[in-house]
């Protein structure tokens, strides 16, 4: 194992310089710049993942979409009024615009009598169009341009720096850290309120929680995350950071707090990986971050441990295989029952997939070759007993309770015989009697 270059870093005696040096060793010349850009992207991605978790579980993903478009005119006006990008004035303007957007959408839904999605579509496209026009009209007075609005300028983040305690730190990084820390703190403090409101707003209102205020707080948090992400990934791809990691995390866990942490982590990973990919492929960092987020989601759809398509397919396959094996064992059991009674061998059909099932049953010691063909072993008989017992008990129970003619009892029993537990079998037996016969007059085997 190679020696970590700590020895070379230590004599410099300056942590900031050391990190820069390490980044340059890892990433090549200019590595420090790339490290700053990646750290900024990861921070805003984590903030968006946190907020997005609540948006996704509240079915408000498209409100996040609308807000991320609609804050643009607020930002532009604040910048024209002398605010710095990422400064407090711009943040406040963005929050105000976001709340105004939500309010306008509600008003339009009420007065215009339109569905909510139509109102949202009207409001956010109009506000975004206004913002783009303002940017174009005052292009000489602000250093935003339509391209920056749409896909961000993550690559330029490291060049706009301010001095903090003697170090040059990118302004975007400072904004991102402040917003990320603030949102994490707010989430920890108000978590219970947010969760209660998200899952049962009526009960929350009845319990005296200011539901509208909690929702407005979430909208304000969305606006803050959006405006911090604006120069990193641009207006439209903020939606990717808000929704995709949260939806990915939702596929991976069923607990809300785990989902929030996971979403923040996934967002951060995607930001770093997307940046590196964009750098290698010489393309837009924001675009590649969205692509990586999409790949993460696709991977979760396929391979999530409980809900993934692969595991669900395997589970279905395993069930089908178990049903096939049990049906086959029951067929042998019935063949032997008939043979015992009338001393006439009944051939058990062996066709198609049945051959594989037979091979598997023989390999696992549940059937074996005997004098008159294949016979159940003791172990196979035990399992077959259970299946046939479930089948016949269910037929008896249906015959008593469902008023079905006796030739309609077989199909439902054929289906449920694979799913009845010992407890249900015992209760049915207690009802129909221990030595009862099934509706076709055949004996019900005892519990093995």
């Amino acid at each position, binding site marked *: 194992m190679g020696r970590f270059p700590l020895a070379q870093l230590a004599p410099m005696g300056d942590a900031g310089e050391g990190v820069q040096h390490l980044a340059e060793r890892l990433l090549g010349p200019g590595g420090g710049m790339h490290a700053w850009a990646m750290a900024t992207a990861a921070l805003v991605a984590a903030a968006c993942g946190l907020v997005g978790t609540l948006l*996704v579980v509240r*079915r*408000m*993903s*498209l409100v*996040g*979409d609308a807000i991320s478009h609609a804050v643009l005119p607020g930002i532009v006006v604040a910048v024209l009024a002398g605010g710095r990008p990422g400064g407090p004035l711009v943040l406040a303007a963005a929050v105000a615009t976001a709340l105004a957007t939500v309010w306008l959408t509600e008003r*339009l839904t009420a*007065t*215009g*009598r*339109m*569905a909510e*999605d*139509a*109102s*949202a*579509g*009207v409001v956010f*496209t*109009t506000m*975004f*169009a*206004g913002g*783009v*026009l303002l940017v*174009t*009209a005052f292009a000489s007075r602000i250093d935003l341009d*339509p*391209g920056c609005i*749409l*896909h961000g300028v993550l690559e330029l983040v490291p060049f706009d720096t301010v001095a903090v305690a003697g170090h040059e730190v990118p302004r975007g990084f400072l904004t991102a850290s402040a917003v990320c820390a603030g949102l994490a703190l707010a989430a920890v403090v108000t978590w219970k309120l947010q969760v209660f409101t998200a899952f049962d707003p009526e009960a929350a209102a009845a319990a005296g929680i200011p539901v509208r205020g909690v929702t407005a707080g979430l909208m304000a948090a969305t606006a803050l995350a959006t405006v911090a992400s604006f120069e990193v990934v641009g207006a*439209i*791809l903020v*939606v*990717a950071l*808000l*929704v*995709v990691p*949260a*939806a990915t995390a*939702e*596929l991976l866990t069923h607990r809300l707090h785990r989902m929030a942490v996971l979403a923040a982590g996934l967002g951060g990973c995607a930001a770093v990986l997307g940046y590196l990919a*964009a750098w290698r*492929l*010489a*393309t*837009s960092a*924001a*675009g*590649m*971050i*969205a*692509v990586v*987020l*999409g790949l993460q*989601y696709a991977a979760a*759809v396929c391979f999530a441990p409980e*809900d993934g*398509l692969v595991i669900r397919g395997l589970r279905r396959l395993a069930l089908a295989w178990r049903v096939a094996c049990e049906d086959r064992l029951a067929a042998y059991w019935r063949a032997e029952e008939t043979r015992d009674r009338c001393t006439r061998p009944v051939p058990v059909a062996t066709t198609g997939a049945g051959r594989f099932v037979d091979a598997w049953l023989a390999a696992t010691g549940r059937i074996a070759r005997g004098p008159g063909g294949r016979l159940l072993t003791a172990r196979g008989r035990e399992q077959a007993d259970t299946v046939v017992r479930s089948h016949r008990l269910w037929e008896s129970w249906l015959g008593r309770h469902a008023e079905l003619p006796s030739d309609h009892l077989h199909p439902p029993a054929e289906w449920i015989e694979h799913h009845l537990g010992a407890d249900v079998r015992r209760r049915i037996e207690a009802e129909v009697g221990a030595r009862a016969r099934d509706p076709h007059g055949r004996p019900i085997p005892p519990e093995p």
Partner: protein
Amino acid sequence: MMSGIPDVVCCVATAPAWLAVPPNTVVVAAGVAAVGVAAGVIGSLAVLRKRALAGDAAAHAALAGVALAFLATGRRDLPVLLGGGLLAALAALGVLVLLRRYTRTRDDAATAIVLSVSFGCGIALVAGLTSRGVPDAAGLEHFLLGHTAALTVADAALLATVSAAAVVVAVVGLKEATLVAFDPGFAAASGWPVAAIDYCLVGLVAAMVIVGLPAAGAVLVTALVVIPPVAARQWTDRVPTMLLLAGLIGLAAAVFGVAASALVPRLATGPLVVLAAATLLAVSLLAAPERGLLPRAWRRRSARRGAA
């Protein structure tokens, strides 16, 4: 360039020569106006069916299709690019249907995922092509916010043809679309193929969004489908009247956008079209005789006077 264009269009093109407007601009305006009309008509049906934002995901996905079509053919002809866009839009809608059926992800989150990830692919493709200095690739950025100045007469004819076809389909299927929009349960019980009608409607919306791309751009084109119907809805309770009004409002917005962007080439067309439509919507919300805020306030005042 003018070959294959109907004579009527040529007459329209040459008539306002005395206005000193380039004839090309007039033809392009006519093509985009046709898109505005058709988007208003189709959009009305979509908004009534509560599928207003179906076009948004399709429009964002179209950017990747446009870039891929350019990459595959190396040509920047509008029919090729829009064909690629349409394929990508339909693919995105297909993925959306699959996500809804086979995952736990909620509908709105699935829409946002398809929209943002496909748009990210598009941005990455366009930026990658531009940074490699591929000739002509820079023009692809015009599909983001709309830019009609570069359209040719043949392009305008294509837009107008597709729009006309879409309007014909919508008018032929008007009864079915209205039924499904207002009472899907009754429609299904009467044996109408509700799902198929919905797929047709969303397909039409996707087609409108694609032909709207040159005028309004991927980001804002959904407004062409949403705003005129909402404005028209304020004036009437009749579906055919709403379709007609929405078409007219779409036409006015499109013509204004093209004209303003022709006068000030620096401005992208998309925001202008959207703001023109939004202005008409604001007028409708204030002044529509039955529902408008001003007439309602006036009636309330006179009622109060009458009571006193």
